[in-house]
């Protein structure tokens, strides 16, 4: 029982309120009735005209995708007309008829026939055509047109499709566009309606919003069967922006051909002065054009499960132990931290031992280099010297120096999916393995092994920073864009450069000059690990070789390439820049499981440098 009786005063208040709210609700119901009456009776004729006789339809006008040019205005991503087979489900009279007749006139894959089956359940706008097949041949077009009357709903339309003239050479940079998936289609904003392809990979993906433009629309009058009577009003689409790359497609082509002599390899060339990527290749590659026209599941699976991983962009996604290529940076870091000097010398018996520990940290040269200073340690790539120096250096201080060379964090290149590499710290190890840092691990890290990982792009960037005396610019592939209109100008995208090193501190600049000098001797000295590429060199190269181990070799064993599985053999690496006096190209090369850096990677780099020099002489003339 409630404490108040039903007819008491307390009951009266809510009852009054119920009356008031009931009146309000009745009024609101009145509004609804009036609104429906207004639409259905007063404005009936107007709406009937819209709905029944002259149905007004809004159709999206899709924008032209922006073009992409290389640095010398050579077109590398084009739009080309393609005759496509489309299906408009609203106009189809018999789904079965089309399903049986169409394959008689034109060759269709199973996936394409499935589109006819699913035509009613694919989300789309009314009267929006479904694409069945692209790039019809003239015979195919003829046989469709002749039998058009038997195939209501089927139409052949000329549309623009993306075309990549440089195919696999530019694949890892440009990526590709592909058909929208159903979920992508649902997520399209209203100014992108009607778009059938979007960037799926590479620059096509990362610059999607710039390239895709803005849809227009037209109001058209249609009859009850959806046939267009006339256009009432048109708002034109705005084409996407054109992009200009930093890539020189001729150098890119040369680099790709040079790398293609190896099974799996990657290289990145950066202009150290402004961060422009001149060429970037990853081998093997793939034909991006096949994705534009809808790659079949079988072909896609072949690419996806290929052991050589052609879809993988090794240059920005591949993470490798950089090996000795990081020794110049480690050397500068140690000089900055005061753990070595140019005069400091060690005796190298072919190994290094931490006091009271049995393990021998071996040099690549079994019998040792003898008396070694920093310059010789760079020229001959002496591991023992770096073991000795790094043993006196704190790993975290070393890591913070290496961070300035862009190790362990993404470079910020304008591509999606960049790997960030790794330069370990004691904190990182604690978080990752819940174990303290062991002194021996610093030794291994100092020769670019162990936990240390870097992408070819990071190595090229580190080399560029070194060549440019500590100044760094975010590496990038797109330098300019412009509206796709007659007479519009290219607009430069600004990439500011910054210096993370204190170059004004006493001796720092001299240290860098000496280091660059030592790197030049890697090529010119008779003991240099890259002396092989010094023949007939009419310009100057400073560089460093690297041979990085993929698997650990036991204490009492020796490395024997022939005895190892191919994927366990050493990676061959080379970093370098040219000309030494005024560097305009910094290069990193890796040949996966290719063997020695000096014997395999350095000659590859020399060929790329030669191609670059030949091209720049041509440009200057």
């Amino acid at each position, binding site marked *: 029982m*409630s404490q108040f009786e*039903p007819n008491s005063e*307390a009951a009266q208040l809510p009852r009054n309120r119920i009356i008031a709210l009931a009146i309000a609700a009745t009024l609101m*119901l009145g509004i609804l009735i009036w609104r429906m009456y207004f*639409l259905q009776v007063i404005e009936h004729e107007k709406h009937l005209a*819209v709905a029944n006789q002259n149905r007004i339809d809004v159709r999206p006008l899709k924008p032209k995708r922006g073009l992409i040019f290389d640095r010398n205005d050579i077109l590398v991503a084009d739009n080309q007309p393609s005759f496509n087979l489309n299906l408009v489900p*609203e106009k189809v009279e018999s789904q079965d008829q089309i399903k049986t007749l169409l394959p008689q006139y034109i060759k269709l894959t199973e996936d394409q026939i499935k589109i006819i089956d699913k035509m009613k359940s694919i989300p789309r706008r009314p009267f929006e055509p479904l694409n069945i097949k692209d790039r019809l041949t003239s015979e195919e077009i003829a046989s469709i047109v002749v039998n058009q009357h038997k195939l209501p709903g089927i139409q052949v339309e000329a549309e623009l499709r993306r075309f990549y003239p440089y195919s696999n050479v530019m694949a890892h940079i440009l990526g590709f566009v592909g058909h929208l998936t159903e979920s992508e289609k649902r997520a399209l904003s*209203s100014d992108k309606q009607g778009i059938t392809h979007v960037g799926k990979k590479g620059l096509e993906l990362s610059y999607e919003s710039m390239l895709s433009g803005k849809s227009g629309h037209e109001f058209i009058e249609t009859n009850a069967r959806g046939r267009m009577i006339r256009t009432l009003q048109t708002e034109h689409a705005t084409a996407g922006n054109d992009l200009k790359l930093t890539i020189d497609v001729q150098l890119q082509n040369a680099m790709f051909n040079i790398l293609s002599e190896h099974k799996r390899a990657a290289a990145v060339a950066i202009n150290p002065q402004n961060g422009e990527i001149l060429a970037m290749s990853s081998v093997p590659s793939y034909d991006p054009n096949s994705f534009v026209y809808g790659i079949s599941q079988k072909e896609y699976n072949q690419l996806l499960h290929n052991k050589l991983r052609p879809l993988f962009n090794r240059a920005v996604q591949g993470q490798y132990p950089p090996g000795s290529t990081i020794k110049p940076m480690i050397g500068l870091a140690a000089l900055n931290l005061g753990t070595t000097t140019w005069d400091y010398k060690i005796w190298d018996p072919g190994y290094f031992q931490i006091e009271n520990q049995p393990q021998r940290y071996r040099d690549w040269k079994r019998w040792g280099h003898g008396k070694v200073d920093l310059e010789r340690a760079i020229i001959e790539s002496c591991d023992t010297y770096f073991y000795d120096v790094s043993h006196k250096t704190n790993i975290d201080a070393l890591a913070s120096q290496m961070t300035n060379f862009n190790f362990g964090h993404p470079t910020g290149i304008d591509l999606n999916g960049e790997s960030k590499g790794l330069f370990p710290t004691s904190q990182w190890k604690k978080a990752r393995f819940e174990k303290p840092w062991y002194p021996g691990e610093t030794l291994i890290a100092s020769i670019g092994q162990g936990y240390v990982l870097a992408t070819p792009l990071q190595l090229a960037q580190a080399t560029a920073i070194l060549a440019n005396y500590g100044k760094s610019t975010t590496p990038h592939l797109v330098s300019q864009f412009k509206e796709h209109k007659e007479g519009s100008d290219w607009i430069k995208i600004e990439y500011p450069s910054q210096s993370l090193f204190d170059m004004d501190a006493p001796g720092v600049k001299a240290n860098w000059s000496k280091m660059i000098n030592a790197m030049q001797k890697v090529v010119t000295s008779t003991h240099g690990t890259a002396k092989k590429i010094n023949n007939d060199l009419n310009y100057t190269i400073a560089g460093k070789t690297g041979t990085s181990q993929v698997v650990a070799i036991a204490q009492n064993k020796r490395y024997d390439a022939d005895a190892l599985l191919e994927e366990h053999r050493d990676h061959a690496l080379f970093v370098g820049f040219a000309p030494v006096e005024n560097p305009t190209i910094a290069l990193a090369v890796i040949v996966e499981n290719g063997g020695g850096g000096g014997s395999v990677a350095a000659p590859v780099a020399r060929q790329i440098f030669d191609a670059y020099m030949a091209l720049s002489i041509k440009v200057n003339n």
Partner: protein
Amino acid sequence: MPQDFVRHRSNMLQDGPKSFWAKIDFGLLIPILCLCIYGLYILYSASGQNSALVIKQGIRLALGFFVIAVVIQIPQSLWLRYSFIVYSIGLLLLMAVLLFGTDAKGAQRWIVIPGVARFQPSEIMKLAIPLYLAATFNKYRLPPRFSILFFGACVSLIPAILIGRQPDLGTALLIAYSGFVTLIMAGLPWLYLLSLIILSIPSAFIMWNYFMHDYQKTRVMTLLDPTTDPLGSGWNSIQSQAAIGSGGIDGKGWLQGTQSQLDFLPESHTDFIIAVIAEEQGFKGVLLLFFIYFIICARGLMIAWNAKDTFGRLLAGTLTLTFFIYIFVNVGMVSGILPVVGVPLPLVSYGGSSVVSLMAAFGFIMSIHAQHYR
């Protein structure tokens, strides 16, 4: 009155629970049944004659009637006692949905219990707020003190803010609305209500600038002029008004609506189903639908009026008026006088999540009715 007294006595003498059928209010049940049948009939046409979908919805509605049957079995004293717990569970689930909810079209609304069910905690709140508020006010003499009114406002606003963050602005406003209906019935002074309305103008301004998502703003803008975004949200408005208007007085006939059948009308079997009724059944069909809704609401308010205690009055009144506001918002948005928010037409739109909470609400109203005659 002596007659009342006699009936009261005789019920006391029965000394046991009333029979199941005596608890059911046929004045409410029959119009609900009519509504469901009318809804399924329309759904068959709106879904493009998809009988599997109609059967699925039929099963959901049947399940809904089972929910009514379950709810009326539970003694009212139990609801009074445990309303706070129901409310707290609802609140916790709302917080959980913000933390672990599944994404659907950019908004987190669902909680998924793997293999068992997925549901929207906001549906629980639709019942829990009126229940808890009615139970709270039941303890005080009406009109309550300011502090209790303030407490009541908080009880309805906190879940509304949580739902607004999902983000689901439409449901958030409706939840807040249901709380305020309870407050009004409990005796919120009209002066407060007036100042609330005046205050809502600057707060709407703040909402617009700081809290509303772009897609919500576009919806409001397209209400003012649907042609500004003809490919996006304006499309729905243009097409649904053409569908409604072209139906005329008599309609084009069942399965004959060109707008609905040729797929010009978006979401024709869910939120926009009233446009299919209007196009195919005409103004007459719309009036029939409104008549059924009117009977249901009138009966609900009658039960509220006759309820024997504050709890019953407030709960039955709030649930009925909440039901009504869903109709108003849905028809208003489809006919172009309110912005498009995702609110289904109660018991007619295709979809399962609201059926359970709506039917449970009717269960409560019936059980209040049964109390009156006990």
